[in-house]
């Protein structure tokens, strides 16, 4: 039985995939998103919008630079949620 946490992670992966216009099925929480072929400065803008819209969170650029996996990004969002 899936825990609520896993469902949240699944939703997050789905939102991320939609934002950068890729297929969610090949993404996991361990995915290093900067190494994805779709990742560039335009994808980053879409991800910023997605994080704001879905989670009401804004991550400062200097903090974002330190995040490499989807898990790290997810955790950063959880930390900042109001």
């Amino acid at each position, binding site marked *: 039985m899936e825990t609520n946490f896993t469902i949240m992670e699944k939703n997050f992966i789905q939102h991320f995939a939609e934002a950068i216009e890729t297929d969610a099925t090949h993404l996991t929480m361990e995915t290093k998103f900067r190494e994805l072929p779709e990742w560039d400065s335009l994808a980053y803008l879409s991800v910023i919008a997605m994080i*704001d819209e879905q989670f009401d969170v804004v991550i400062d650029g200097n903090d974002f630079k330190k995040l490499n996996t989807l898990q790290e990004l997810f955790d950063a969002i959880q930390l900042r949620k109001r």
Partner: protein
Amino acid sequence: MYYTFIDDRVNQKKMAQLIFNHLNITALSAAVPSNTINNLQYTMHFPADEVREIVEKTGIYQRRFAPPDMTASDLCFAAANKLIEDNDIDKTEIDLLLFVSQTPDYRMPATSVCLQDRLGLGKHTIAFDINMGCSGFIYGLVVAFALMQQGYLRKALLLDGETRSKVYSPKDRKTAFLFGDAGVAALIERKEDFGSSFFSLNSDGSKENLIKIDAGGYRMPSSVDTVKEKVVDEYGNIRSDENGYMNGSEVFNFVISEVPSDIDTILKLANVQKSDIDYFIFHQANDFMNNYLMKKLKLQKEKVPSCIRYFGNTSSVSIPLTIVTQLKNQLDGKKILLSGFGVGMTWASCILDINQLKISDLVEI
């Protein structure tokens, strides 16, 4: 009706808020260079498919570039002459001339003073420059309104012009496709039957490095080194210290953090709802950002005009340029909200009840 107090709720965020009465923009004109750049063909330094991706995301298909001998003041001069002609303005009644720009003719004297002479205005005309970017038109309006409020000045000309095409390097992917040139002229008058107008203005200098030109001032004076092009990042983007640069993602972060609450503030100050506003005119930075703002603020597309497709990001000129090119004959009796945000960082919004606004046809020079 005079507002003699401001609600405490509105004051909580400690923003600079102003209310004026009996002042309005009564005429507006714009001029752009006839030299048109087609972004999809702007492929001298980047592959066509990459360029297409940028164009589709930003929504900027065309821009106007001023030739080497044309400056922002020339664009404003053309706009001002059109305004004066179309409205039969008595130049001797222009008591105030403001020039908003970050691409002036000279570091000194102020370009507005040169324009006072070029336009044949009287020596009694107060003329000075305002060095502001994307929020600049609203800052210019506030200064004009403030000086006009008491009724000692008869007419004000607010000129706003930029030649950002000369600022950014065509070899820097982050900015090469965004900026264009334009100039506007606005006539501001005071009449008893004009209603109230509302302004909110803000600044955050901690973000000074988000949009900047490093060299050419006195922090980093121009030298043989500052004009040299160099590779500035791991993507191979090239520019000199004399070129502008922008951190696009941080600017987007800033906009989504600050602009929605500033719009909330101005609506509260004016004691109106979003549904009372006929048009929201945002600074035209890029389609993606403005579409996101529209979505976040839940605004109907018909209320949010745009001209970025044709002119790109013209900095402070973009708000009045949008009005001239998209809202001709549509503003009389309408309530409009202007919102400008950018370099500084600074951000400003205002709500105006347009009485009668005579908009001239676009001038191309």
